[in-house]
């Protein structure tokens, strides 16, 4: 049986599935239920400084987009950090940690960007017995207007500064949570590393408007006729998050920096993909908010089964295994040639591959052969783009078949070269590095 115990910057948990800092982790009641359901850890909903807590809107806090059968694909929220008193949160955290010593309990923190504020709160948190802290530099709405959250996360110098204070004033491991609302995710990650962070976690939510009410012309979610951009999360953001995880995992300056992966993780497979790209563990929120805490049972069992099937003994066997395969476009092998192939037995003749190719691509799929409805790839035209595979409703019906070296590519009329060659040496590239004569 695969061992899925997790050790993330010294924080141990029975599995790599943590609940992200968010509404599901706002109080003891919820966190107790999460641990009972089997979650390996939680990042408690973000604490603010002592004093009167923040207030939330009393209208809608969430907006969403849906797929077929109203399946939730993306969620957006304008909820702020915890609106409960700091002492209440600290007291509950301490009790929960005592009740569940084998689970990870990490405190998310967001206080004003000055040394005194951080210096003041860290000992209070440490006293709860929390296993670590996560610096919320990501929250994109509300708090950012007050100079916190993503307002810090968008300025690498601030990140480095605050991380340094935290490392100075607490013995707890520091995880720096990054905002995706920046141009290059490597910059804040490098800054966090320079500040001495133990890890980064990403992504926080993405600035978004989920919809517009076409009767009132108000953005959604709508509060008394107005709306504000909220933070977008859920399955729809997973590809964006995975790219950012991979960027940090393969960056020369941040390579090896532990990453807690966040962003639309809904199933064990999503989790495994994040970990393969370099995440040491994962954090989940939207899936739990959609289906409840029980989903962790599927995640645990699914991950174990897959690891057993593939012979992976522990998480270290899978973490970062896909990272070396993430590269720049310029290094992709231009001599790798594929052609789409349609399995006629599996084809249900919907014709979507044809019309997608005919209208929008390369006119490489028939619709009619000898007077009969028939969809077949025309190798002379197929550039191997994979669009037909993506629009086909039948999984496995269309596949991309690589041509063997030496085989004729009917489109170019040339045999497939056996050697790897990329853009850096391509004759069409004016910057090509031509080998010396």
């Amino acid at each position, binding site marked *: 049986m695969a061992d899925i115990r997790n050790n993330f910057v010294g924080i141990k948990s029975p599995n790599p599935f943590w609940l992200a800092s968010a509404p599901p982790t706002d109080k003891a009641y919820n966190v107790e239920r999460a641990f009972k359901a089997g979650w390996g850890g939680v990042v408690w909903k973000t604490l603010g400084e002592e004093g009167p807590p923040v207030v939330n809107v009393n209208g809608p806090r969430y907006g969403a987009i849906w797929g*077929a059968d109203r399946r939730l694909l993306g969620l957006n929220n304008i909820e702020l950090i915890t609106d409960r008193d700091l002492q209440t949160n600290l007291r509950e955290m301490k009790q929960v940690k005592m009740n569940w010593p084998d689970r990870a309990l990490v405190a998310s923190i967001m206080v004003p960007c000055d040394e005194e504020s951080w210096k003041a709160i860290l000992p209070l948190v440490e006293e709860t017995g929390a296993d670590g802290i996560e610096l919320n530099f990501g929250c994109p709405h509300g708090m950012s207007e007050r100079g916190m959250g993503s307002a810090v996360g968008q300025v690498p110098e601030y990140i480095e500064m605050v991380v340094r204070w935290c490392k100075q004033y607490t013995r707890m491991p520091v995880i720096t949570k990054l905002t995706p609302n920046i141009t290059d995710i490597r910059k804040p990650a490098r800054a966090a590393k320079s500040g001495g962070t133990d890890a980064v976690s990403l992504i926080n939510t993405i600035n978004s408007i989920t919809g517009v009410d076409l009767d009132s012309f108000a953005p959604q979610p709508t509060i008394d006729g107005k709306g504000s951009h909220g933070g977008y999360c859920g399955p729809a953001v997973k590809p964006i998050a995975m790219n950012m995880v991979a960027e940090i995992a393969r960056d020369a300056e941040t390579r090896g920096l532990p990453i807690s992966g966040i962003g639309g993780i809904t199933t064990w497979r999503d989790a495994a993909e994040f970990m393969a790209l370099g995440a040491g563990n994962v954090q989940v929120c939207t899936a739990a908010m959609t289906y409840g805490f029980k989903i962790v049972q599927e995640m645990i069992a699914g991950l174990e089964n897959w690891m057993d099937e593939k012979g992976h003994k522990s998480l270290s066997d899978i973490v970062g295994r896909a990272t070396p395969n993430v590269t720049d476009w310029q290094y992709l092998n231009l001599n790798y040639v594929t052609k789409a192939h349609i399995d006629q037995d599996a084809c*249900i*003749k*919907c*014709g979507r591959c*044809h*019309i997608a190719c005919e209208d929008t691509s390369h006119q490489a799929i028939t*619709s009619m052969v000898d007077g009969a409805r028939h969809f077949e790839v025309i190798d002379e035209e197929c550039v191997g783009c994979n669009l037909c595979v993506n629009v086909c409703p039948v999984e496995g019906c269309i596949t991309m078949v690589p041509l063997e070296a030496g085989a004729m590519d009917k489109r170019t009329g040339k045999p497939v070269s056996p050697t790897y060659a990329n853009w850096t040496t391509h004759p069409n590239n004016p910057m090509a590095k031509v080998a010396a004569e």
Partner: protein
Amino acid sequence: MAEGLFKEGIVGGRLDSAQYAENFSDLHPPLDNHEALVEADRCYFCYDAPCMQACPTSIDIPLFIRQIATGNPLGSAKTIFDQNILGGMCARVCPTETLCEEVCVREVAEGKPVQIGRLQRYATDVAMEEGKQFYERAAPTGKKVAVVGAGPAGLAAAHRLARHGHDVTILEARPKSGGLNEYGIAAYKSTDDFAQAEVDYVTAIGGIKTENGKALGRDYHLADLTASYDAVFLGLGLTGVNALRAEGEDAKGVANAVDFISTLRQASDLASLPVGRRVVVIGGGMTAVDAAVQSKLLGAEEVTICYRRGQEHMNASIFEQDLAAANGVVIRHWLQPKKVISEGGKVTAIELEYTAMKGDKLTGTGETIRLAADQVFKAIGQSFEPSALNGSGPSVAMEGGRIKVDGEGRTSLAKVWAGGDCIAGGDDLTVSAVAQGRDAAESIHRALKD
């Protein structure tokens, strides 16, 4: 338990009064909004969609379903009505299982087609409940067209002609318009007086005058019409019923299934409608199933359909056969009626002979059985009654007992078009009648323009 449940003979009141309402409620209840969205999402929006090819009226099915999915049911209804102004009734009565849904790629892939019929009903219901009219009449042309028969073909023709600015007069023999939609469809397929609501919806375009109780050959002749109208469309339907050709079929208790169905549709109180305790229906088509199932729903204890050929030859679709079976109707094959047995003038049983194929010829085997019956329905097909057509003037050419038409619906007579069940080569489907009426109207319009 109602007192009449096991009464011998043909009597009413076999069921508790509440049971009738339940038995004759909508066969396919309408989809609610969420169900419609979920079902619409199942459509793959196929290229050159097979469903559209299979529809006799060529409705752009992927488009209307996508319009439902995107929250535009009115646009969806217009897409449907553009091709088929009786899309509401077709959504209810089309044998979709042998048309659009049979060729749906999801039927091919997983045996579960997109429920095109129910989606079509969803969209057309929205438009009709709102009374939304999509078409305005073109400027008046001053041309007059007579439409004989207010059934699906006649209504479709009338609507299209009125759209083009012609003045239409519909002449209908029965007291109500709608044709088979009003008189010939099982009650659970068209509830809440839908057929009349649809007639009102179709004729609301204006420029259509309907005269009920006017029968061709009785009250006027074809020559009268060709003399006083610029064009004539014949949508006469089938008024004859084929005989059993069995001894004693005149006995009391032997009736035409179409008359039974029609009476049932017009009944204001189903409990008062008499039905036998043991009913035998002779035939293998939709009419046989409609009569058999409704007999059962009225409280008949035993209902048996007897068909002279095998299951695979039945005109009733598999869905209809299953519907019959689910309602407790027994379907027996390879049996042809031989003799109706009566006592005191009332039918008590029917004698049937087993049949077999000898080469490609169906013959009796000589072996017979008797089924006890106090009511026997004839549902072995309807025929065209040409006598009404040829009261005066030149006669209309026939083919195989029905009116001969060309590809545009033109008969052998100048100025006379025809469509629906009365023409040769049809498939006796409502939706085909609509297509023929519509296309004949376009042909008439082209002719009148010149």
